């Protein structure tokens, strides 16, 4: 049933994601994309960052897109979208994934009623964030899990455990995370600190992006097989 995942994490193609001559990831405008062989098909997915205020949604989005990480918390204003390009080999085919990540600030969600529907419309995956330094948030997680997706959007659901690098303040144990995964049948991605060495950023983030793209591709295959 499960296809063979021959995932080529081709470093040559990952180079195309960087600002030439640096190890910094390039910010591609809407009219731009990485310079890959034109035959490589592009697939786009919409992801929505979900979770309580200060749970690390914006941090996670910036990590995935390889952008600078804020040193102090500022509440997100309105909606913001990032495009994360990720080339991956599936089988022996090179595919350019484009993850369109949508993130919104809490007070904008409360004050303006167009914000949440805009984020949820046509979503392929919901990334539910919580911080392992926040016990209260952890206890709320099962409830959030039920509201994260709606039956109609059939979105893939992935939980992101943030602040895993803050050992001293940790309030949720590894064991608890494992049993949560098992009981609820959702994968948890553990997000530690960014690599100190900025030049290593892409290697650091690659496993997470590989996982997300694989998960989304899998979901497509499942949805296709359901359709008559």
């Amino acid at each position, binding site marked *: 049933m499960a296809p063979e995942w021959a995932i080529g994490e081709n470093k040559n193609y990952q180079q195309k994601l960087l600002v030439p001559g640096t190890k910094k990831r390039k910010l591609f*405008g809407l009219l731009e994309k990485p310079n890959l062989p034109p035959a490589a098909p592009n697939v786009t997915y919409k992801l929505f960052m979900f979770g309580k205020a200060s749970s690390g949604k914006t941090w996670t989005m910036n990590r995935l897109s390889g952008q600078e990480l804020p040193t102090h918390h500022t509440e997100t204003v*309105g*909606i913001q979208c990032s495009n994360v390009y990720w080339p991956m080999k599936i089988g022996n085919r090179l595919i350019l994934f484009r993850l369109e990540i949508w993130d919104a600030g809490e007070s904008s969600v409360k004050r303006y009623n167009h914000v949440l529907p805009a984020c949820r419309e046509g979503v392929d995956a919901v990334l539910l964030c919580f911080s392992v330094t926040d016990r209260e948030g952890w206890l709320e997680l099962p409830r959030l899990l039920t509201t994260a997706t709606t039956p109609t959007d059939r979105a893939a659901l992935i939980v992101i455990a943030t602040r895993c690098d803050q050992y001293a303040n940790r309030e949720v144990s590894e064991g608890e995370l494992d049993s949560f995964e098992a009981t609820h049948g959702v994968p948890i991605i553990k997000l530690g600190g960014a690599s100190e060495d900025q030049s290593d950023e892409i290697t650091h983030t690659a496993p997470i992006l590989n996982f997300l793209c694989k998960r989304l591709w899998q979901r497509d295959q499942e949805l296709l097989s359901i359709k008559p």
Partner: protein
Amino acid sequence: MASWTLVGLWAPSGVPLFVRHTGHGKPPPYALIGSLNGVHVFGESHGVTLCTTRTQNASLTWKTYHDSIRLVLVRGSETTGDSSDSSLLDLMFASLVLLLGLDTVTSSTNIERLKRDIRPCFPLLDELLFRAVGGENHQGFSHLTGCAECVIPPEHHALQNEIEKFAESADSTYACVMMEGQVVSGTRNFWTLSHTELVLLPLLVTTNTFTVARDLPIYLPNKSPNVPFRMLVVQLTSHVSVVTLCGPTPSLADMIRSATSFWAPFYQVLEALSSLLPWNIAPALLAQLDNSVIGLLLVNYDHKRCVGCLHLSEDSRSRSLCVNKKSAALQSVYRSIIGPLLQPPAMPPEDFPTGLHPDHLPLESYVSTDSYKVYVLQSSPFHLLVLFPPALPIHIARQVSKRTLAIFTKGKTPRL
């Protein structure tokens, strides 16, 4: 380096709402903030409004808005306050209105909530403070000139038509193309926005450069302080974005789609704009500038635009002056000349002649220091500040400045 602190208080009760601090040292302690308000209240109870004062090592400015928000600006290690401090406070208050709306800011009944509400404004307030203090990578003059920070592109009109069409397709009349926080081209209506709005909107765009599209609910501090707009920002290339002020439609997803298809045919034109960086002016203008010019600031108050060039003659003479110092020099001269001697919109202050010459209108001025010379020209509606190396004789600086002004203003339509 100087230090600047902004304190926000709820005027009716004196409760501190927030403190923002930049530069060296620590922000003032809580007790001192209390006294800052106390001094002001003491004056009020005696029928005196305390506006500004100086101490041995700081200058302070107070301003109260709508009897509700009181802002205090403390400039450490500087003892000369000036009128630009008061207009900086106006911009800071307008920043609160921009993100929260006037009613929320001024008619709050729950102070704890107001404190929370104000937090998303911090990046904008901090950006203003960074600029004022002359922080690295925070160059810009719009907060002083009250005009939009611009670049002067070579093919101005090609984009002009397109931005009008694009705005129309998005059911809007306010739109502009921006590059790295500077306006490249705006719709006719975009330029009817107030000075404050033209300063703050581009600043808000620059406070987040990591994303490819944004939907920001904002209020226009002058044009629409209580009815929100949606500011849709989409990044077209790594440097160029298009900003549109919209009502309930189009959705952000629609905007992403329509902007992509609308602007795709202009990719080359947009991409070519990045060759203006870091000079900010078209190569044809750049080529005409004299080698002795190491920096300049040009303001057109009629068109509400200004352009700052700091990367001039970098290879040759000016090695002693880094971009940061050039920016600081132009800012400092702008503050000491424009206002006290010349006034926007490029006129001498009304009260200037009294007590001096009844018919004396200052049109030119200069400042000379050990590390630079700045020549200032006034020619309505323009102010031009030209930065030179310190050794250049002043009569040459004058001639070059006049020629420089002509480069930008001669011809049927001025370039700014």
